[in-house]
């Protein structure tokens, strides 16, 4: 094993990134000829093996390695392609691989028979390429490129069923909201570049980097840069108020939701903030923590009222991402990364289980020739009898989500909540609101995931006029990946000690030093509160949803607000979308009638002027000429009469003239 490690981890990690790209290109060329997805599967399998065996093993707990290659030069500044392998990046890369692999296997049967499946594999490989590239980028510019590319792949996959109106609305929304974040990222890059002249992560944030030499971080521009990068992370990691795209993104295939919109891409924001953590000053960190708390709380609330099984999970994802943001904001980005990793496993599993359920419901719908929404939990019920394995796996994942002891979620969530308490007790005062709210969110989490399980798997199947014998567990190609993820939802994968997160390998590997003291009592009290809270929540859920003693009116204002996601979409439509379109209309009107109107007016003015001058020319100038000519002519015409050729007349004229002459002489 040792001599294998002599192979450069850098080139291996590049190979990990390039394999899915190759799969993308091959699939693009093969097109409809290849529908099995074997190319993508081989690529991601190889990537996973290499990433685990040659990159993660070689770099984890060893000093970071990096490589830089010149890319292009602008003026006298050279931009580079660089690859950075430290504990954070190899962990992220490995996790992406290890989540993507089961999803690929699962997709083989989940997406079977879809007419556009060749595109599916193409897009999926493109996504893997971009996401894996993102994890090991050494400079911000390169990171930004992959950052946008994952968004692009996500756009393609959300709109995979492009004939569905809702899907194409959703992918447009996702891309545009993410664009807002991307602009933040770009502005952040611009600030860093014009302040420090470099975008290299090692030069900036490394051990001997600019930031470790104690520069003044409390300037306005540094705060601006922090907020700009956070804006990027907010959009990608669906933080309030930019989270609105994620619930809609559930229009994509469920396997896509599990990989991109639950486990990996949406966590990229947390990863970014962890990578550039030294950049943030106190102000920015506080903003991050507050935003994270608001996100966690609001989304947990929205998740309570949803009926679409995927939307419940989507809001749950947003809420958990909020937890991770809080962890970054309080300076415990190692805890954030730990939660990112455990969350990736159990949330991906939740989605895959939901996918299996939806798959069966859709089959039932096709068999029964009936119109109903296969994703609506109100149409389910009692499924545990028909799909026991799916139920068992989903229950484990739900326990992990709720942070129940013996699961991985227990470890990582405790790490965040307890550290948040320690942080708040260090700062005192209003800061304590944040950990209190985190505990509330945790109890809400237990309730909404319990509600999902109770509604879907307990009680009686609600569409009783359908033949339930068609319902059965997912095929093995779907179950095995789910089982694999299920193992990742249990504590021993991350720490041999099921009760304390302190022994978790990931936390030790990332080893962040907190500026506040540890409070030992909390390590006992907080888990007890969380566990008891969850148990009470489940007891209530059991009574309400299984026993049927539901005390609330579904038309209740709060329930409606939760179902309609706080009416945020409507508010955005009214305040941003509509006015922008109105402004566009107005500026087009302005363009047509004012700007172009002015042009046409000046053309008209010139034309009128020229017809005026033409009139002047014809009737005044030429009129003068013509009247001179006319006068002459008329005079001539008058005098012509004299020259009439009659001798008598001539004599008469001569006589008259002589007579006049004589008279003149006499009178004088």
């Amino acid at each position, binding site marked *: 094993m040792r001599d294998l490690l002599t192979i450069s981890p850098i080139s291996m990690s590049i190979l990990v990134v390039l394999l899915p790209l190759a799969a993308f290109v091959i699939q693009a060329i093969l097109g409809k000829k290849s529908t099995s997805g074997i190319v993508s599967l081989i690529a991601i399998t190889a990537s996973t093996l290499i990433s685990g065996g040659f990159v993660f093993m070689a770099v984890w707990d060893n000093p970071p390695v990096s490589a830089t290659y010149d890319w292009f030069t602008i*003026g006298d500044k050279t931009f580079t392609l660089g690859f950075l392998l430290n504990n954070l990046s190899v962990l992220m890369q490995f996790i992406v691989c290890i989540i993507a692999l089961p999803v690929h296997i699962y997709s083989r049967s989940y997406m079977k028979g879809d007419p556009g499946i060749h595109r599916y594999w193409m897009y999926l490989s493109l996504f893997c390429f971009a996401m894996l590239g993102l994890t090991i980028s050494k400079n911000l510019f390169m990171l930004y490129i992959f950052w946008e590319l994952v968004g692009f792949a996500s756009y393609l996959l959300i709109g995979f069923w*492009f004939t569905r109106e809702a899907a194409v609305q959703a992918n447009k929304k996702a*891309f545009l909201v993410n664009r807002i974040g991307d*602009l933040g990222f770009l502005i952040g890059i611009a600030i860093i570049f014009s302040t420090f002249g470099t975008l290299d992560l090692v030069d900036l944030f490394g051990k001997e980097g600019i930031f470790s030499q104690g520069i003044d971080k409390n300037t306005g521009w540094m705060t601006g840069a922090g907020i700009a990068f956070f804006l990027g992370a907010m959009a990608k990691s669906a933080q309030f108020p930019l989270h609105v795209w994620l619930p809609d993104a559930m229009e994509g295939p469920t396997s896509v939701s599990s990989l991109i919109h639950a486990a990996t891409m949406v966590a990229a924001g947390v990863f970014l903030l962890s990578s550039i953590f030294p950049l943030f000053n106190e102000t920015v960190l506080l903003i991050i923590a507050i935003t994270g708390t608001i996100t966690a709380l609001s989304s947990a609330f929205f998740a309570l009222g949803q009926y679409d099984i995927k939307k419940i999970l989507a809001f749950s994802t947003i809420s958990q991402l909020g937890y991770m943001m809080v962890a970054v904001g309080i300076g415990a980005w190692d805890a954030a990364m730990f939660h990112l990793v455990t969350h990736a496993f159990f949330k991906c599993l939740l989605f895959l289980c939901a996918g299996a359920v939806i798959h069966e419901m859709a089959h039932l719908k096709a068999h029964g020739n009936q119109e109903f929404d296969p994703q609506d939990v109100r149409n389910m019920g009692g499924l545990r009898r028909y799909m026991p394995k799916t139920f068992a796996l989903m229950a484990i994942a739900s326990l992990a989500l709720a942070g129940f002891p013996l699961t991985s979620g227990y470890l990582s969530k405790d790490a965040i909540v307890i550290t948040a308490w320690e942080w708040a007790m260090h700062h005192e005062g209003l800061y304590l609101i944040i950990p209190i709210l985190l505990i509330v969110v945790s109890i809400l989490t237990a309730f909404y995931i319990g509600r999902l399980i109770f509604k879907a798997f307990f009680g009686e199947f609600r569409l009783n006029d359908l033949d339930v014998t068609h319902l059965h567990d997912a095929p093995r190609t779907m179950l095995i990946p789910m089982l694999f993820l299920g193992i990742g939802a249990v504590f021993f994968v991350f720490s041999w000690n099921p009760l304390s997160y302190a022994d978790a390998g990931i936390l030790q590997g990332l080893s962040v030093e907190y500026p506040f003291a540890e409070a030992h009592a909390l390590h006992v009290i907080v888990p007890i509160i969380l566990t008891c809270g969850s148990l009470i929540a489940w007891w209530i859920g059991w009574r309400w949803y299984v026993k049927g003693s539901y005390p609330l009116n579904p038309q209740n204002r709060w329930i409606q607000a939760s179902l309609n996601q706080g009416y945020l979409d409507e508010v955005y439509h009214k305040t941003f979308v509509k006015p922008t379109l109105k402004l566009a209309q107005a*500026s087009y009107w302005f363009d047509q009638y004012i700007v172009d109107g002015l042009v046409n007016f000046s053309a008209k003015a010139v034309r009128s002027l020229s017809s005026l001058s033409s009139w002047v020319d014809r009737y005044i100038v030429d009129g003068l000429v013509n009247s001179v000519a006319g006068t002459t002519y008329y005079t001539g015409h008058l005098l012509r009469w004299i020259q009439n050729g009659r001798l008598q007349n001539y004599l008469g004229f001569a006589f008259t003239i002589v007579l006049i002459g004589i008279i003149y002489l006499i009178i004088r």
Partner: protein
Amino acid sequence: MGLLSLLIFLPLVATAIILLLPTSLRNSYKYIALVFTGAQFALAGYLYSQFDAAATGVNTRAGYQFVEQLSWIRMDLGTLGKLEIDYFLGVDGFSLPLLALSAFVMLMAIGASWNTTKSLKGYFSLLMILNLAVMGIFCALDFFLFYVFYEVMLLPLYFLIGIWGGARREYASIKFFIYTLFGSVFMLLVIVGLYFSVINPDTGAHTFNMLHMMNPANYVENSFFGYINNYHEIFGIPARRIGFIVLFFAFAIKVPIVPLHTWLPDAHVEAPTPVSIILAGILLKVGGYGIIRICLSIFPDAAVDANWWLGLIGIISIIYGALNALAQKDLKRLIAYSSVSHMGFVLLGIASLTAEGISGAMFQMISHGFLSAALFFLVGVIYDRVHDRYIYNFRGLASLMPKFTAYLAIAFFASLGLPGFSAFIGEAFVIIGTFNAESVGTGIPRWMAIAGSLGILLSAAYLLWTLQRMFFGETRLKGGEEWASALVDLNRREQLILFPALALALLLGIMPSLIFDNLNSSVLNLVALVAQYI
């Protein structure tokens, strides 16, 4: 005869042949045009590969390559001195990429003209004359020669739009012609003014040589545009500033900037597809090139004073153009307004007067050159088939024309600045350069960079919205079955035209050094030239 002359006058040979051949051979005209343009493209490619990237260009003769200088007109004007007009050609890092771009876009335009049937003789000979003129513009280093090419360019375009165009072609062609002429007439005044202010240090005669105009030492003391002891004013504005403004105005019409842009949507919409391609791909770049080569290089002092306003105009063009594009219901008009928006980035980058900004602006011009050409070609494909391009008359085209949709989606994403494609590099570095301007001290505030980035968001909005409205969803066409059978997918010729353009967009997005390597030393030289006056 030098290579540049060959490049410029090859189309003239083609014109002569086309004019001499009898009309019975009219089907061969397009092949003649294709062969000659292909030869030009090969030649431009050869020049590009032979270019020495270290050449600094801009203001010294030694900085240019493939230089040709012949005395053209010499006249003794008595007390006014000697008239000295040269046939003076050369290329540097600014002009060479545009030259290669022009040859490329011309090839696309010839390909797009393949099915033209109306008076072929006139059409192809005019196209070749246009080709000659644009090549000449990018090579000319004598202002008089530049002006000649600049004006020659208008004539074929006028007829190409006016005869081969759409329903309102006469209105559009007249508007285009007069608008552009309006700018260039005043330019002539400045050219004459410069002529009387500048002296060729070798012969002592007044000269039209642009390189001499870039050297302050060549200006006659107390002359109209002179540097030293210049108290000339018009309406209280110093003469050099007036000169800058007038020249900028002339080129800005071409770019075009808001509010001098309204000729563009009309000309684009009415022009036949190949002419739209040339208009967007090459003509607009003449404006940007003129601002760099002439406004900035000959009037660097005035440029430094005015760049705040240039930046502001750039931002207004970006946002206003994008908003207008958002409001369009005609696909071609939408693309036309998006050109206004994207060219605003060019102006913003130039105004930043930083190496990143100017490089970004140049890159954006190249990128927009073939991307807008591809976009207009794509619009032409639909229009050819059903003679309609009203966005709401189409829906769900993706199911009907999958290949076409794939190409169009790639072109759309490339234009909205997806990384990996060329427009991203251009726009990103315009933004970064503009942002950096405050650190360098060129007087462009940082909010302009942030405002400019709004345009990136809006461009995503109008392009994705179009994609959603026209291409996705269930198929539903205004023309019903008749349209559905008419809307066949791309044929091989169309793919042959589109593929290289999009491949180039991808290639330049991944390897921007293909442009930057030849561009860098010229940009640095220009920035240094301007920096003296900051």
